[in-house]
């Protein structure tokens, strides 16, 4: 089956010649009209639209956006905050970057509709420190919106006021985790909080109810307010509604970002047809489907997946439709949409050593299993790559990883264990044989760490 055509909802204007990030351009393309209509509706109706839409968060966990909003404690009498997660720190993910740099008003419109729907009077955009231009672009866009009475006091002449500020991070991955992000926004080290009791919806920023949503999620909210929840839910596939931006990197002919209806394209269609297949003379070997923390898939492995009609079918990696549920059924996750492709030039021990160095660097250090485990996984895989590999190292790595997941404060514990667990499980022979096979220095592509 040929690949479907892209359906660009969020990225409609990304890379469009002549499209600029200023308010005038956004307005020429119908900008803020949806917000005007939304502000004429009761907030509860908008929350209902989002519930009906089936929207699932695009930051990584795929949690229902409507449900998240429903869980907000509205009886506490405390202010409700919105925090936009623009940390985009999961390796392999690069979609929010383009929204922020090229279409910042789309995000602001989605955020302001969300604020209105949830009676938020103060919102922050937490943007990673490595986007200095992005932060300036957002600040300028917010200033324009404020001057046009779209942000700030008595928005659009109503009695409703809501302000929005940009807050820059400073290079730590864990600030992407929502409670770490909240601590960081409070001016502290980004140590994630334990849940319960610190669910952001109840005890978030300044111990007040807080909604944390990803940049792309909030852009979808704008389109849901525009189309209506039911119409939006017809895009994509059941329980995996809307469009999804797939960020493809690594060993393909045409890496980049591609927006399709969620679940209407398979891995094979995306990598072969849309991305042009492997590099000349190469074969695909492995793919990480949802950001570096997702479990790796090995080309050639088979999955028994339950179909919508209840029957089971055997699918290969290429046959997997790219939606949350199928990828979860295949033992991995759709996560943040970052798809990292590795071809047969890559040695999996070396690729894992690269990822392990990342996680060891980024563990916040609060929980012993994560702090020590991520460091040991890095040390063991680095030793292997540096000439000290032993046949039992794969087993040793797996033992360390198995003792992290499920025993930590935040999901980083799983995030750092899953690569090791899946690499060793699926490429065990490469780990066992590394010492014998690797006499020469590591492959060109992933050298020493």
């Amino acid at each position, binding site marked *: 089956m040929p690949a479907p055509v892209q359906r660009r909802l969020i990225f409609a204007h990304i890379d469009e010649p002549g499209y600029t990030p200023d308010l005038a351009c956004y307005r020429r393309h119908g900008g803020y009209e949806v917000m005007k209509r939304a502000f004429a509706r009761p907030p509860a109706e908008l929350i209902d639209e989002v519930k009906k839409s089936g929207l699932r968060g695009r930051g990584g966990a795929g949690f229902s956006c409507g449900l998240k909003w429903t869980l907000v404690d509205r009886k506490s009498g405390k202010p409700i905050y919105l925090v936009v997660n623009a940390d*985009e*720190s*999961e*390796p*392999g*993910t*690069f979609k*929010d*970057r383009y929204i922020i740099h090229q279409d910042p008003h789309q995000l602001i419109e989605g955020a302001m509709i969300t604020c209105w729907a949830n009676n938020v009077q*103060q919102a922050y955009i937490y943007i*990673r*420190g*490595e*986007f*200095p*231009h992005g932060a300036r672009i957002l600040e300028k866009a917010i200033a324009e919106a404020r001057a046009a009475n779209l942000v700030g006091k008595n928005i659009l002449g109503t009695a409703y006021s809501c302000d929005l*500020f940009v*807050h*820059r*991070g*400073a*290079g*730590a*991955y864990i600030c992407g985790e929502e409670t770490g992000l909240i601590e*960081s*926004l*409070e*001016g*502290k*080290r*980004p140590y994630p909080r334990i849940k319960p009791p610190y669910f952001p919806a109840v005890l978030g920023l*300044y111990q007040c109810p807080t909604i944390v949503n990803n940049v792309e999620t909030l852009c979808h909210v704008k389109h849901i307010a525009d189309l209506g929840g039911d119409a939006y839910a017809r895009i994509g596939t059941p329980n995996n509604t809307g469009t999804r931006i797939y*960020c*493809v*990197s*690594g*060993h393909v002919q045409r*890496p*980049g*970002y591609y927006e399709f209806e969620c679940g209407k394209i398979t891995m094979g269609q995306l990598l072969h047809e849309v991305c042009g297949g492997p590099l000349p003379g190469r074969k695909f070997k492995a793919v990480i489907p949802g950001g*570096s923390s997702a479990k790796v898939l090995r080309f050639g492995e088979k999955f028994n997946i339950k179909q919508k009609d209840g029957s089971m079918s055997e699918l290969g990696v290429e046959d997997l439709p790219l939606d949350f549920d199928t990828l979860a059924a295949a033992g991995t996750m759709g996560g943040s949409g*970052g798809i*990292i492709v*590795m071809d047969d030039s*890559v040695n999996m021990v070396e*690729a894992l050593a*690269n*990822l392990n*160095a*990342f996680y060891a*660097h*980024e563990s916040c250090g609060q929980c012993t299993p994560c702090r020590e485990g991520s460091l040991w996984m890095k040390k063991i895989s680095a030793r292997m790559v540096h000439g000290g590999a032993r046949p039992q190292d794969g087993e040793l790595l797996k033992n360390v990883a198995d003792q992290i997941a499920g025993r930590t404060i935040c999901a980083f514990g799983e995030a750092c264990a899953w690569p090791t667990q899946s690499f060793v499980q699926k490429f065990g022979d490469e780990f066992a044989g590394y010492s014998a096979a690797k006499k020469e220095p590591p492959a*060109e*592509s*992933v*050298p*020493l760490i």
Partner: protein
Amino acid sequence: MNLKPATLRQIDEVITHYPVKRSAALPLLHLVQEDQGYISREAIEWIAAKLELQPINIYELVTFYPMFRQHPIGRRHIRVCRTLSCALTGGYHVCARFQQELSCPPGGTSADGEVTIEFVECLASCGTGPVVMIDDDLHEKVDLTKATQLSQQIKAAAKTRNPP
């Protein structure tokens, strides 16, 4: 502390963004680092006093967040992405090329104080790897030829600034 008047104005303005002053810690650290080049002991105490905190509350941020530094760096700051997608497309070789062209030790500053080169983790531009940030600017698809060109531009700019 000898902060520029514009920095002081920005500091006073940004504190108003938050109901709790402590939230302005990261913004103040960014502003002071942009003004002074790094975060000195004196800066830590100044920011703490400004936000009615103890110096340790600021010091613990400087030691945690990778982007803050306690020592001056080279005039130009080169940050090469180290993470998987960039590594798969040659990021390590690109980093080595910069080091070689600019006579810069790994993770350090060149003897003339002109450049600091460091590896950083994923810069969220994995589809156009290898990527490199030079000061605030992102450079994409940096192969070895492009790394050499960029190094030469940096050297040329240094020469115009300090004629021999």
